[in-house]
């Protein structure tokens, strides 16, 4: 995944697992196969969409994110494949 490492270098793009609770990120890339992308897409998570991390569990548990008005629980491994750009100024 050469793309991902390049994006990571400019220090704004992080995997969803590293996003802080309560923060919003814009999806830059989903580094997985077609299957994963299709699944996420069905629940409104796709490149360019803003998602908010509602919670995450200890011991590499799943994260809950909100996309639009939909909340989705995503396992740790899958969450690591979603690369987001942290949105700093969030308007309510």
């Amino acid at each position, binding site marked *: 995944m050469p793309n991902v490492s390049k994006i990571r270098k400019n220090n704004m793009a992080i995997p969803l697992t590293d996003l802080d609770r309560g923060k919003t990120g814009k999806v830059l890339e989903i580094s997985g196969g077609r299957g994963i992308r299709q699944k996420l897409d069905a629940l409104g998570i796709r490149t360019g969409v803003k998602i908010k991390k509602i919670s995450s569990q200890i011991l590499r548990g799943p994260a809950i994110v909100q996309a639009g008005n939909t909340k989705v*629980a995503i396992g740790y491994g899958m969450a690591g494949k979603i690369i987001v750009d942290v949105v700093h100024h969030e308007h309510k």
Partner: protein
Amino acid sequence: MRRILLVGNPNVGKSAIFSHLTGINVITSNYPGTTVEFTRGYLLIKGGKFEIIDIPGTYTLEPCSKAEKVAVDMISNEGGDAIINVVDATNLERNLGLTLQLLKQNAPVIAALNFWDETKHLGIRIDAKGLENILGAPVVPTCGLTGEGIKELVERLPFTKSKTYDYKEEEKWLEIGGIVSRVQKLSHRHHTFLDKLEEISTHPLTGIPFALLILFLTFKTVRFIGEGLINYILDPLFNKLYYPLIVNAVNTILPVKFLQDILLGTTPKVMESFGLLTTGIYIPLAVVLPYIAAFYLILSALEDIGYLPRAAVLLDFLFHKMGLHGYASIPVILGFGCKVPAILSLRILESDREKIIAAVLILMMAPCIPQTAMIMSLIAPHGTGCLLAIFLLLFLISVSTSFALNKLIKGETPELFLEIPPYRMPHVPTLAKKLWIRLKAYFMEAAPMIILGVFIVGVLDALGVTDFMARSLGRPVVSILGLPEETISVMLLGFLRKDVSIALLAPFDLNAKQLVVASVFMVLYLPCIATFFTLSKESGIKNALKIVSLMLFTAVLAGALLNLLHY
């Protein structure tokens, strides 16, 4: 006859609308995947008869899972004369993805904007007429719980339209974004009690204590309601009113000793006599029913509030170690009630590997609620400690068996990926209806089996078969499990009804240790016959037999080890 399909994303309230259209009560819950089978019903309007089919939810017509594939095959291949597309109005954008795909199909579509009442609380305003004009197909706001809008939905069924909206598939979401910005207005809303609940139940620090609190309260409430009903209402009713009456009646009408023994039993102790009209009535109505009602009341409330998917998130880390993801916890929780619907709900899982491991967990982690009721009434005199020991032992045995299976069966452990529905206040009439469906299932299917079981025991006993089996097959049981020889007949009968089999232990006067060993053994050793048939239908006779052999092996091993322990 014309056929109408109910199609929509998971958890948008299709089954609630189905109930209103057909008058058939089906189980509805607040989590995705409640409906795993096609349910058929009929709607009569103006002389015409329509077949309505409730289809399991799908997010898209390009299926990502097996469950979705089944739904999509039904929509695309078998098709229908019309489609009612149930849309979650609080999630318009995401739901329109499927709507646009449906509008490309041949079957004409009408859209129901469900959860219409909720949009108001959420500060969402949707211009339904505007949406109708854009889509070109009728759009009707509905509320599946109260039935609001269902009448209009039916009235406008003749005006469904097909192929009214064309777009390029790759520009779908851009297109939908455009539609939503034209018909939907959002305004600020205040935080509510349910938001607070969300925070507490999913935060890593408070989530697990909260889950334990729920578990504790469930256990306490089930015992409180169950024992309250038994001690203050059902037991007095039976002993003071029914029992003297029936004994008198049988003695006067049927002066035949053999028949009297079968109908009334041989002793006046109701838990030990096994008379068809005494024990056969007492067990299903005065021992098991109160606990079933109490348990399903709590479970149904937790389902409707939407707690189960949150529990799935919290349990994900544990289930991951067993080769499952947290979603598998929902069938396991359902299994605390009855194993049959729990096994059916395994369809929400993907691979055979997951299904086998989850089936083992469902069958071994806890007794079903009728069996739990019998264990409680039998063990309670020996103290809560014994009761806790049984449940703890079962938990440890089932989890370690699943750990082992995860190592033995090759394959990947899938990732949790699950929509978390919003918390909702339970709608009391819907809750009552669901409780009724579940109690009715017990009356229709389980209670007759209990009475039949009691009857068979009575006949076998009267014919001396039990004595014979105890002498021939009883020896190994004695030596391995440390139980009386006669209990063998109990174990043979457990296959028919697991709750009756526990009740059959009552006459043997077992000590606390023997009761713990016997209970653990009898929960684990075989599934009941209804569960066995469901399991072989769902996962094939071969897998079912493998699972049953594993259970039997584990039960003997666990029983033998427990018997060897000194405590």
